[in-house]
């Protein structure tokens, strides 16, 4: 299958390893990955912060970059949710139905949805011998409703010890610009998330949104906890010896 990768601007700059992992993983599974070079930002940050005109401009740019692509895969649940859920709303606010039509014409999948629902695989042949806990991000669970797809993928990884995260469904406190505008509340939330993570004695926190992982990881790093954060794609891309 020919797959257009929507890497997400945030990953492009800060987490290129995630994009490389998606590319490697999908190619390993025998699919062709293309990267439409005109892609930039889907407009999520502007939309959720109230800059709706700017969000409409960015959404138009996204639509133009991916026009004619049949299958779009992204390693960002919140960006997938933006295209699927927010684009119709952005279109309504901007009175520009073309934005909503563009979202309808595109099949945008978050990586775990694509692997499990479209490709029908849960065992991608990965090997990752570490203790891992999984944080289900808000956009992936309450937005996209990916359910346990990421967990099914993780359970099939050889060598991986999956430990349950207490109060997993609670938001980490990132919330985009919320983390800046309401920094104290945001930190109070991530403090509890970090407490739960450390309680699991996991070496790695995994999730399907690098934005949330930047938040959780940023707090873990400040505490010099030694716990790493990794996107699901990076774990699935790992293969064992032989």
């Amino acid at each position, binding site marked *: 299958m020919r797959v257009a990768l929507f*890497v997400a*601007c945030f*990953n*492009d*700059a*800060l*987490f*290129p390893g*995630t*994009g*490389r992992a998606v*590319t490697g993983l999908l*190619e390993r599974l*025998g699919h*062709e*990955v*293309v*990267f439409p*070079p*005109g892609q*930039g*930002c889907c407009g999520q940050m*502007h939309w*959720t*912060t*109230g*800059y*709706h005109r*700017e*969000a409409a*401009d*960015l959404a138009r*740019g996204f639509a133009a970059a991916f026009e004619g692509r049949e299958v779009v895969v992204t390693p960002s649940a919140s960006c997938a949710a933006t295209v699927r859920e927010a684009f119709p*709303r952005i279109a309504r*606010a901007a009175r520009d139905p073309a934005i909503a039509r563009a979202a309808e014409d595109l099949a945008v999948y978050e990586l775990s949805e694509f692997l499990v629902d479209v490709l029908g695989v849960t065992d991608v042949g990965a090997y990752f011998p570490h203790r891992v806990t999984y944080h289900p991000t*808000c956009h992936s669970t*309450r*937005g996209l409703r990916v359910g346990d797809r990421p967990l099914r993928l993780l359970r099939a990884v050889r060598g991986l010890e999956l430990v349950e995260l207490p109060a997993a469904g*609670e*938001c980490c*406190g990132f*919330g*985009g610009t*919320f*983390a*800046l*505008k*309401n*920094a*104290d*509340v945001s*930190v109070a*939330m*991530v403090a509890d998330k970090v407490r739960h993570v450390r309680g699991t004695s996991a070496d790695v926190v995994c999730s399907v949104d690098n934005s949330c992982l*930047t938040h959780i*990881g*940023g*707090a873990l*790093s*400040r505490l010099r906890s030694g716990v790493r954060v990794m996107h699901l794609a990076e774990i699935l891309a790992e293969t064992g010896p032989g």
Partner: protein
Amino acid sequence: MTPSGPAGRAPGAGDGPVPPPMPKFATAARDALADTRLRRGLRSATEAGRARQAGAAAELDDWEALREAGRAIKDAALLGLDVHLEELERAVTEAGGTVHWAAGAAEARRVVTGLVRATGETGVLKVKPAAAREIGLDAALAAVGVTTHETDLAEVIAGLGAVPDGPDAHPDPARIRELFLRGLPGAPPDLTDDPADLVAAVRADLRERFLTAGVAVCGVDFMVAETGTMVLLESEGNGRMCLTLPGTLIAVAGIETVVPSWTDLEVFLQLLPRSSAGERMTPAVSTWTGITPGDGPRAFHLVLLDNGRTKALADEIGRAALRCIGCSACLNVCPVYERTGGVPYGPVHQGPIGAALTPQLRGVKSAHHASLPFASTLCGACADVCPVKIDIPEILVHLRGRVVESRRHRPVPSPELLMMRGAAWTLGDRRRYETALRRGTRWARLLSRGGRIRRLPGLLGTWSDARDLPAPPAESFRFWWAGRPSRARGGRP
């Protein structure tokens, strides 16, 4: 429409002292975050509330159908609000009640203050005080020498607090005992912090008040238009005392509480108790229609309060917030509320629904009101639990847009506006984006040490106060992609 009546225009009544302006949410939240006792109380109360709600909802096979019915009934009722309210007025009047229409808080204060003064009473009992609080009734009555007394246990405790914690502060028994010894009339000096003992002390005080009170002011949960019936749900039974013992009963009700018929009520009498306290049925459900000779109050007044509601109703996205039936399920699941409590949201509507409703009712001019739509991570837990399916995050994003637009054309643009415009300009064009990516990466790497950035400049500084940021790798994804052998770049393997 009935005019406010002769007592409704008492000179000088209705305008209490003006309270100082509320600070922004983030500022107001700091005190709450630092209050260990409050944090503990909120954590255990919201955790218990979540578990109770989830259990009560899971008991019913048709919970999702009930939610959908609740949503549909409320939407239809709101769209036909004018018709239902006039039907309600006719029915209440026929049953011997008097209906007053109040467009704003000041008008409602004048009406209620006038009605209370006409009774000659100097004390007023209150139950379900949200609407009374919304119009600032306590201060207005105090200004004309009338004292008010809460009758709901949580409100009694909050009223005795030295700091205005509000009813959701969840103080522990030891703190309640302190408050009672200091401020509750007739509290025995050997009062213990055993909850039964504490409740008995309040009960003794309240019984006396119920039996001697001449006038009570109440809120309502629902109004049934077809029969003019008021519906009030409460768990203590004190409300029923307020509704039946005083000679004059004054209900202050938001106009959005009207439902067309009794069959509609069937849905809400299941949704509300299960969503609020996780109960199958609220212990005390009181309904009354006008007055009944020889039984209960001799005079009943209904003050129908708009106070911004029709303005909210005119907003296609924002109007969904008016479906709210006041269950507080969204408060219990909100990770922000769990840490801040209700005070930073302002005195009337708290939690996620307050953030979605207050800016619509009061506008977004003040810094406090403008900050409310941003007091959420948009995590969506509230929308998932709401019994009338209010998509609170959608409303909050909509209101954020309103806040930004209201400030876009100020003479001096805010740093945030400049930054967001600059970001959109950069991200919206491939060449600019790629240039920024190269330069930004270089600058960010200069800020970093050992692979992480520990201090960020300007508006980003609040991030790095408590969190690191990974240094961006030298090569962004797109430059890595561009450097791949062309066979691997889109060519078939």
